[in-house]
């Protein structure tokens, strides 16, 4: 069968792409390619992918509206920060207020602290979810935004635990980019497996029609809490990775505006599309770096262009988000997943009807 052969080819393409990807990251990692800046940006994109894909699980696949990603990341980041800084460095970091004597004794391996951070995030999500997820879905947005702010206030004030506004420095850095990319591949794989399981179908049923889902015997509350907590778990993992990428955490990093990055990513990639989200994570993370020049003062032909100053990047960013929501609501892929069939048919359509406007894009 021709179809069979086509499928075979596609499988081969997938393997080739995966090998190219692994080779590329390894080359970067071994410093054959790129510089530290490129390595940092790509690692950041890997972390953003984890958080965005898990946010899409909650918002795109289950139809909830959570805006708590920054808060959950803060929980994961601080867990890693508090428990992985070497004991002998603690006193120098907590020089204004002493670290809590119990915590000052505890040092955990990175992996343990990372998972603990994820679990703590999930636990907090369950505590938020139990009262809020019984209510109409819009309340979750308000509650999670509130949570993000409360977390920041706690981080600033619980000085014996978090070192307050000074933040925690000296978080051990990772020897290889593969920590970030490995966890990214693992996380995305797990979320894809979940979405394609019976539980994932139940999530989608809730997104499609809550009343019908409940009439089919699906416990709405239980499944919403489940999805929300799983999303929070991976956001916590993403936060833990961010802490070790940056080597330092402080409360200002987890301003709730950070959540809008992930919102932009999932809207751009397509609510309900994992492959779209992965692609959009890299586009947006790299794009935000490119846009950084808007934040620098710019002098053109002797004139100081007044718009170019710190914060202008975010103006452009917000405008992009608005344009996206107004005109390209389905994002890159809508609810579909990227497939070779899609790519070949897209090219065919392009060559056939060159002048006609493209669909999803």
């Amino acid at each position, binding site marked *: 069968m021709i179809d069979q052969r086509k499928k075979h080819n596609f499988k081969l393409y997938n393997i080739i792409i995966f090998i190219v990807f692994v080779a590329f990251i390894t080359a970067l990692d071994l410093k054959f390619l790129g510089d530290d800046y490129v390595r940092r940006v790509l690692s950041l994109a890997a972390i953003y992918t984890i958080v965005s894909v898990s946010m899409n699980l909650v918002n795109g696949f289950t139809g909830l509206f959570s805006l708590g990603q920054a808060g959950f990341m803060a929980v994961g980041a601080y867990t890693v920060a508090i428990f992985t800084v070497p004991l002998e460095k603690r006193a120098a970091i907590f020089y204004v207020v002493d670290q809590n004597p119990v915590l000052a004794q505890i040092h955990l391996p990175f992996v343990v602290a990372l998972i603990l951070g994820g679990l703590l995030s999930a636990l907090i999500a369950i505590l938020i979810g139990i009262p809020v997820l019984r209510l109409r879905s819009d309340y979750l947005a308000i509650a999670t935004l509130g949570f993000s702010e409360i977390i920041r206030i706690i981080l600033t004030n619980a000085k014996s635990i978090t070192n307050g506004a000074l933040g925690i420095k000296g978080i051990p850095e990772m020897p290889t980019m593969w920590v970030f990319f490995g966890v990214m591949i693992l996380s995305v794989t*797990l979320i894809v*497996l*979940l979405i394609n*399981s*019976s*539980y994932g*179908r*139940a999530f*989608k*049923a809730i997104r*499609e*029609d809550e*009343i*019908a*889902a*409940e*009439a*089919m*015997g*699906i*416990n*709405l509350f239980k499944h919403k809490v*489940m999805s929300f907590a*799983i999303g929070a778990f991976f956001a916590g993992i993403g936060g833990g990775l961010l802490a070790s990428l940056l080597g330092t955490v402080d409360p200002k990093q987890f301003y709730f505006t950070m959540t809008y990055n992930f919102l932009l990513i999932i809207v751009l990639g397509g609510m309900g599309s994992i492959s779209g989200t992965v692609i959009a994570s890299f586009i947006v993370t790299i794009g935000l770096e490119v846009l950084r020049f808007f934040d620098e003062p710019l002098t053109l032909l002797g004139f100081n262009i007044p718009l170019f100053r710190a914060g202008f990047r975010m103006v452009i960013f917000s405008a992009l988000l608005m344009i996206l929501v107004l005109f390209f609501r389905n994002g890159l892929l809508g*609810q579909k997943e990227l497939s070779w069939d899609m790519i070949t048919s897209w090219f065919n359509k392009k060559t056939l009807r060159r002048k006609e406007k493209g669909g999803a894009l």
Partner: protein
Amino acid sequence: MGILKLDNIKMQFGGVVALNNLNIDVEKGKIEALIGPNGAGKTTAFNVITGVYTPTSGDVYYNDKKITGLTPDKITKMGIARTFQNIRLFKNLTVLDNILIANHLHVKSNFLSHTLRMPWSRQEEKNMREKSEMLLDRLGLLSLKNEIASSLPYGEQRKLEIARALATDAKLLLLDEPAAGMNPSETMQLSNFIHDIRDEFQLTIFMIEHHMDLVMEISDKIYVLDFGELIAQGTADEVKNDPRVIEAYLGVEEDA
């Protein structure tokens, strides 16, 4: 003995009394119908039975167990499934996914073992798929299994909604106007279809319907509701000749 019993149900929305002193006793294995003019309270009665609304007073019993106040998912798990007056399929999902979702209530292993594809979860998933495909095959929908639900013709969507309710393994099926929007020949087919599934799956069927030919032909017993009150009950002939029924229907002839 009745499989479903409504005992003195009153359902009040603010000042509107949608159901008043409603007593219904549906017998196991029968096809019974609930009729009445628009706004009589028929769908409200279904919503009370399935737990969408908790009645202001009175109780609902299923197999002699009180189910008043239970959530809709618990009631479905006990064996009552429904269709909706305005079709409520999972529109953007495939036909097969719609059926698989209705199997989820039987899933025993947790989300972790399903995510990690543990052997027992794989088995569960495999059984679920086989059972769903068998059901689709039996109902003549198997060739459509990969179609998106909303792309199906109207009649097939109605059928799929019944199939989805069946997939929950319910023993009591509540159908809210299954023939709405169908032409006479489609309605005839539906009548046979309802009969067949009742026999094959040993169901009890309680349905709301406006097509009088269908109701009269198929029902073992008919309840007539008007302004939230039960005004008549009995066989097709008994109900047809009841003066109060004639009055209720003549009074709203333009709507009916």
